[in-house]
């Protein structure tokens, strides 16, 4: 039944609006209570959630089986406007309104509950505990949907619990870490923000901006996508948390592709993000940026192939930020992985590079002593630039805290959701999810800073000196890393890319977009193509020789599909389904990076010349 499959177009966001938090009495050990709703609040969604949650909390029980000890209702109320254009022509223009729910029920207790367990079989219900619900914001239909979903979630929890207990009995040593950490309930009912996208003609902006690319006859294909999204998210739990927050995000994401004279496929992308539609650049500005991306792509077409290379590589700030977004996520999470009796699950996680290098290393030096790494969902901007990763409370209803993960090179803390780990237990408000999927500890606004930064010319000099000392006539400077979720014109190209890197991503395979050869003799820069970075892992950052004093705010959408979130692949997302996040990073110099030139067979050239664009 299609009704109960969360649509892929569902976009989950995490922006924030400055609203004071009103913490209820922190009394987590008390018996669960009905979720309070502020007096005078007549939102039927909240009322239906409260009434069905209360009925389930007090009466839902199978004979001879535990009652639920935790019930959680999540609901997203989503309005999406999306427009796609290519070379000045509209490909799609849609407006969609939808609502989705997800119900979580746990049996057991904080120490051992029905969650955190992956098994090959389990409860197969007729409807499931997630799905699309009515968009009327009415009371009756939502109660009906929540009733069935709660019933399904409870039965699934009971089944899962017995499977888990049987599995635990088969282990020689059961894990001692709790399944669920305590947190004070929060009541926060913000005003609902209604969508407004009438102020600009988005169809014409998409047409106008994309028309600029008609000047590039050698571009094979392009897509210019506009997304304007409003989401009101609801969270209600049997612990007394009641949250309603409204958020929005707006984006322009464009992909351009071509091929070199030898057949090599090449691409480029452009992305601009804002907290609301009005924040997006106008069509002329977008057009200018697209023209720049087109020019870069044309340069790339005629650039030489890079040979195999091992030596110093300088990453400009935007590239460094992307590298951090790829190498850090698995290790930032302090939550323990779920117990799994499915070997395929473990293998998949390992292949995606989901294993932490920092577990059990708190107190150890992980970066040069000049480096501090902070994740801060509470900061709204950086040097006047808005940070789209901010939020007040996370997707588990926990206030987002500023976490100093690495202090002067020493690992101090980790990002926590309500799933405890071997090093830390309580949540620090980093449980994030896209599309109502499982929450995971994910970064929000990640700030990587040095107390001993180099000025741009100092950094460049250090880079060239290192290059010369290593005996090279030139070394490589990466100005931008690829994000195939944005640079692929066709979904199939993205799938191909993921298939291509999947085997190497855990070993540190990284794909640059714009790489320059910088000559020691005169500092001359030359764009090269075809290089793939090998072996660039978190450990490579432990002794990086130098970082710059510049700082780039790199906004990206963490991909939450396919289990990508929290892995290196999570960096490859788009507004469609992605979780807004930022990395603030300076330029970074690595003294030894392996770059492999292109060794494959380039694809065959088109036999038919492209038809004119004008």
């Amino acid at each position: 039944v299609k009704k109960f499959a969360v649509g892929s177009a569902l976009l989950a966001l995490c922006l924030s609006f400055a609203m004071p938090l009103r913490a209820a009495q922190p009394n987590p050990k008390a018996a669960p209570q009905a979720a309070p709703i502020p007096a005078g609040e007549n939102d039927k969604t909240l009322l239906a959630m409260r009434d069905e949650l209360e009925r389930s909390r007090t009466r839902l029980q199978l004979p001879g089986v535990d009652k639920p000890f935790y019930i959680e209702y999540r609901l997203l109320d989503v309005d999406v406007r999306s427009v796609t254009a290519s070379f000045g022509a509209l490909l799609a223009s849609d407006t969609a309104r939808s609502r989705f729910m997800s119900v979580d029920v746990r049996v057991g207790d904080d120490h051992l509950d029905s969650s955190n367990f992956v098994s090959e079989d389990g409860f197969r219900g007729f409807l499931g505990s997630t799905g699309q619900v009515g968009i009327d914001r009415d009371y009756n239909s939502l109660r009906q949907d929540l009733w069935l979903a709660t019933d399904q979630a409870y039965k699934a929890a009971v089944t899962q619990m017995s499977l888990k207990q049987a599995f635990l009995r088969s282990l020689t040593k059961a894990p001692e870490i709790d399944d669920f950490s305590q947190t004070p309930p929060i009541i926060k009912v913000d005003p609902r923000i209604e969508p407004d996208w009438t102020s600009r003609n988005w169809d014409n902006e998409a047409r106008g901006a994309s028309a600029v690319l008609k000047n590039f006859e050698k571009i094979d294909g392009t897509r210019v996508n506009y997304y304007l999204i409003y989401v009101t998210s609801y969270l209600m739990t049997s612990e007394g948390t009641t949250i309603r927050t409204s958020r929005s995000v707006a984006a322009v994401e464009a992909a351009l592709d071509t091929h070199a004279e030898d057949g090599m496929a090449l691409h480029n992308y452009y992305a601009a993000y804002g907290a609301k539609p009005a924040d997006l650049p106008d069509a002329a500005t977008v057009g200018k940026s697209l023209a720049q991306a087109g020019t870069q792509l044309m340069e790339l077409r005629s650039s030489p192939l890079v040979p195999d290379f091992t030596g110093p590589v300088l990453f400009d700030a935007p590239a460094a930020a992307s590298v951090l977004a790829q190498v850090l996520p698995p290790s930032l999470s302090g939550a323990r992985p779920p117990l799994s009796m499915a070997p395929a699950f473990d293998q998949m996680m390992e292949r995606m590079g989901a294993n932490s290098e920092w577990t059990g290393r708190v107190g150890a030096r992980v970066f040069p002593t000049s480096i501090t790494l902070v994740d801060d969902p509470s900061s709204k901007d950086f040097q006047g630039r808005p940070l789209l990763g901010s939020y007040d409370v996370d997707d588990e209803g926990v206030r987002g805290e500023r976490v100093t993960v690495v202090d002067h090179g020493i690992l101090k803390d980790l990002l926590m959701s309500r799933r405890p780990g071997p090093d830390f237990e309580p949540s620090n408000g980093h449980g994030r999810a896209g599309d109502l999927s499982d929450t995971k500890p994910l970064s929000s606004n990640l700030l990587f800073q040095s107390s001993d930064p180099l000025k741009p010319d100092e950094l460049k000099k250090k880079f060239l000196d290192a290059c010369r000392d290593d005996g090279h006539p030139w070394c490589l400077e990466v100005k931008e890393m690829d994000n195939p979720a944005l640079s692929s014109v066709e979904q199939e190209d993205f799938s191909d890319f993921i298939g291509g890197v999947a085997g190497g991503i855990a070993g540190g395979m990284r794909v640059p977009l714009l790489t320059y050869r910088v000559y020691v003799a005169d500092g001359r820069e030359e764009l090269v193509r075809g290089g793939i970075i090998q072996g660039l892992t978190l450990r490579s950052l432990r002794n990086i020789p130098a970082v710059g004093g510049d700082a780039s705010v790199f906004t990206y959408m963490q991909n939450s599909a396919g289990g990508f979130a929290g892995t290196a692949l999570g960096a490859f997302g788009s507004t469609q389904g992605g979780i807004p996040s930022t990395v603030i990073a300076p330029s970074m110099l690595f003294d030894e990076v392996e770059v492999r030139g292109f060794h494959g067979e380039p694809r065959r050239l088109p036999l038919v010349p492209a038809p004119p664009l004008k």
Partner: protein
Amino acid sequence: MLGAAWAALAANRSPLPSGPGETILSAMQTELDRSMTALSKGDPPVYFISYTLADRQYSSVSGSNGALLSSSDDRGRWLEVQTRAGSNELDNTHKLADRQPSWTSPGTSTALDDDIPTLRREIWRETDRQYRASAEALIKVKTSQQVQVQTAEGAAPDFSSEAPRTYVGPRVDIHVDRKPWEERVRRYTAAFSKSPAVLNSIATFSALGMNQYQVTSEGTKLGFGQVHYRLELYVQSKAPDGMDINRFANFDWLDPKDAPEDKVVLARVQTMIQETEGLDKAPLIDPYAGPALLTGRASAVFFHEVFGHRAEGFRQKDINEGQTFTSKVGEQILPDFLSIKDDPTQAALGGQMLLGNYAYDDEGVAAESVALVDHGVLKTFLMGRSPLVSIPHSNGHGRRQLGYVPVARQGNLIVSSSKTMTNAQLRQKLIELTKEQGKAFGLLIDDIAGGFTFTGRGNPQAFQVLPLVVYKVFADGRPDELVRGVDIVGTPLVSLTKIVATGDTPDVFNGYCGAESGSVPVSAVAPAILISEMEVQKKETSTDRPPILPPPGHDPETKGAAQ
């Protein structure tokens, strides 16, 4: 398989002058000529190219449990490019026994605006992508040729040559006011919610207006439009033992003025509620073998599943298929009073529209009425452009859902009989047979859901159709008793030969059939049939029990729960 799905086609033509369609067709033709000139000299050479552009307007309004679920208008253009490398005898699509050729989706979305340079660029780009995939696939085909097991039909060419067709009809448009339908789907699903037995209900209205343009390197040039409106009702329930109970109803029409009246739909809602509540309480059937009477609608689905799918030509050349009928052309496979044709050219029957109606198939071939069975003797198969040794040409049944590669599919499968009796006589005959066989009761099967047809060789040659509404008809004249959990078992050839009589009124089932080339609109038309022996078993019950708590709107412990 017959089932419910998203969209549909049905021819609706009346003359109109050329419009944007001609501009699009000429741009497609320009690119086709350029591509054919260059790619026919390529290595490997391309011998056939087709471009299809589907311009689709789709409105849909869906409601559930008394509230609106979604309401949207969707407009899109989908471009499909087919490049065939090699020759008609052996090309890149040749099915390999050992492995599947790597699959490239045959299309991309393209410009909604009539922007010719952009359209041409998209066609060029997609052609290049498809040609590269075809060239690679052909190499794989050629390298595995030597080691491949050859079947008789494996010697058939990969692609038929067909005479070019030219037809450019008027462009169709739909103008849908979704507001009244939003109210209607709320009302219908709210009516369902009055019954505590209905756990979940969905009502979906959809309107499709599609203009399809096609040019091929053989000289075919087509442009035609189709319009279709549909209302679907669906409810879910659970019997006390956890068995899933589903009821489904649909209304189809071509002209907005023929939309079903509110009272007609609400009456159907009431019937569905009664059936649901009746099934919830009905006893489970015990394993049984004996006579069975299928009403027209159930019989239509039965023929679609059991006969129709096995008459699809492409299955006869695939080594992985069961090939039930492959060697049976010219043989008696049914009682001699039965004949079956598939006729997509028929738009209606007895005042009811036929959903499988179309003028040209998705490979640009004109639809033909195909006499599949004549007085019990199998004559031929439904053919797309994948020929058999004995059947070198298509008969206009190559069909697909957008985004899939066409294969031979059913259109309007029509069963006729020369041995008919009234439905009352047929029922009397059922009772007689029951007595003859010394059984206490016979079965009356009133509704069948399209199940999954196992035509693959790995599966037993059995079929699974799911009877939804089944009655015991007692030999001693007691009132009929509704039973549930009935699963038909048996082999298709045997069950087809055991038909002993038919009714005199054909019944129409309109639905969506999902198979290798996606979901396509089809009709099945048949009279009621009496089968001398049918074997049924008890359907496996779900482990998911009914909900623990009563529905919130019907909870005696909470007064005024509904708001």
